């Protein structure tokens, strides 16, 4: 289904917090320049799995994993890999928009400046804002505080901020959960546009959103000990018209979860 050119590949990935196993044996390919949605009930390890893809879980002291995560074929957890550098290449957008208490311009310029970017910073900021479908709304007030923007605009600013460091993959953890329906549709539209140039993984508890926006859908579910497994992974169309596993069907049709 997904060929060898996967952007991110999880191989037999298991995750533990201390002595508690939370994810068991996940094999998953994130297709290049496609949108992959991860769905599942609360507590089914969706965000944990997502955070394995850019080593965000490293920040949790009790975190431990087995198996492999390959980013463009490279072992993401190899000793010589710098997690900070990985997080630029595999960017992340969070549940609640989290702009820095700085100007709109400085938010987008933040990453490139830290990275010692020497090019035309203004052009890069404009380009990133344009890609995030925000530039026209903010071009006359780039020096205003990012906190003056609406929730939907702030989330697009966070996407622009992630784009400014030229990532290959964008991870989105419930990016619309604090947005109203119109702002949500704007983000979904933006995701479709961005998927032409970026590989996107989105965690969502909104199944209709997964159905609307993604190319592939992964369904995670915890077993009786709350250890999450990948129950089914297929083209989104297949998952939402004729899922193979009855647990997937029960979940997406709202019969449990």
């Amino acid at each position, binding site marked *: *289904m997904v060929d060898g050119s996967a952007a991110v590949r999880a191989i037999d990935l298991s995750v533990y917090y201390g002595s508690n196993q939370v994810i068991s044996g996940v094999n998953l390919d994130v297709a290049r320049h496609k949108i992959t949605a991860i769905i599942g009930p609360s507590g089914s390890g969706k965000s944990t799995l997502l955070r394995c893809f850019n080593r965000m879980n490293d920040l949790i002291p009790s975190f431990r994993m087995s198996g492999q995560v390959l980013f463009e074929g490279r072992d993401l957890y190899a000793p010589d890999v710098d997690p900070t550098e990985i997080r630029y290449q595999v960017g992340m957008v969070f549940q609640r928009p989290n702009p820095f208490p700085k100007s709109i311009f400085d938010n987008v310029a933040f990453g490139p400046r830290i990275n010692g970017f020497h090019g035309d910073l203004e052009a890069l900021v404009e380009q990133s804002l344009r890609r995030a479908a925000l530039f026209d709304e903010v071009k006359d007030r780039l020096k205003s505080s990012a906190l003056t923007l609406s929730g939907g605009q702030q989330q697009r600013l966070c996407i622009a901020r992630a784009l400014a460091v030229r990532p290959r993959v964008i991870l989105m953890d419930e990016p619309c959960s604090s947005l109203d329906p119109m702002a949500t549709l704007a983000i979904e539209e933006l995701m479709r546009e961005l998927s032409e140039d970026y590989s996107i993984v989105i965690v969502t508890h909104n*199944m*209709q959103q997964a*159905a609307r926006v993604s190319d592939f859908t992964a369904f995670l579910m915890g077993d009786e000990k709350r250890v999450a497994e990948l129950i089914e992974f*297929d*083209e989104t169309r*297949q998952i*939402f*018209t*004729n*899922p193979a596993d009855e647990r997937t*069907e029960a979940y*997406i*049709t*709202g*019969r*449990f979860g």
Partner: protein
Amino acid sequence: MLRADFDRNLKLLQDDLIELGNLVGQAITQAMDALKNRDLAASQRVVAEDDVIDQKRFELEDQCIDLIATQQPIAIDLRTLMAVLHISVELERVGDYAEGIAKVTLMMGDEPASKPLFDLPLLADKASDMLGRSLDALILRDAGAAEQVCEDDDQVDNLYKKVYRELLTDMTRDPKSIRRATYLLWVAHDLERIADRATNIAERVIFLVTGKLPGVNQS
């Protein structure tokens, strides 16, 4: 149980569809009995009843649209609603064929009842049987039984060809029979189309159960 209300509505929808199927099945039987018995009053009743069938089909569509708009059905629920929608249209068309047979009886007027109907009663039995089995397969979610219905359509096609040949022979032999034989040819054609519609219904059952549409490759 989550979505108990939605489940109840889906069940009611299927009950209504089966009721429409029963009405249509009765219409075929009544139209054929009226043809055999030269019963013009019964034929008129079949024609009048078709309005009820048409009305029920639109009510079913309305219920489907309601559920789609308010419940965002997916997977098995979506396939169920699409199947109900398609099957209700097929049944409505079968009702039209029964009405067509009744109208032929009316046009034949006071022709004596004794003249042969060739294999038309057998053709009607086979077509009705296929229709009944396609609806049973729907109730039981039995894709195997539905496939059998599709396969049986060849038998009806062959029988239709045989009736067709016999009617043509009859016309050639006795030009006075042309008018009557032509009417019976229409009946034969209606019955053959009923079997085709039963096959379409069976294909919808297969789709409902397996998610596969004929001739559409799915990954």
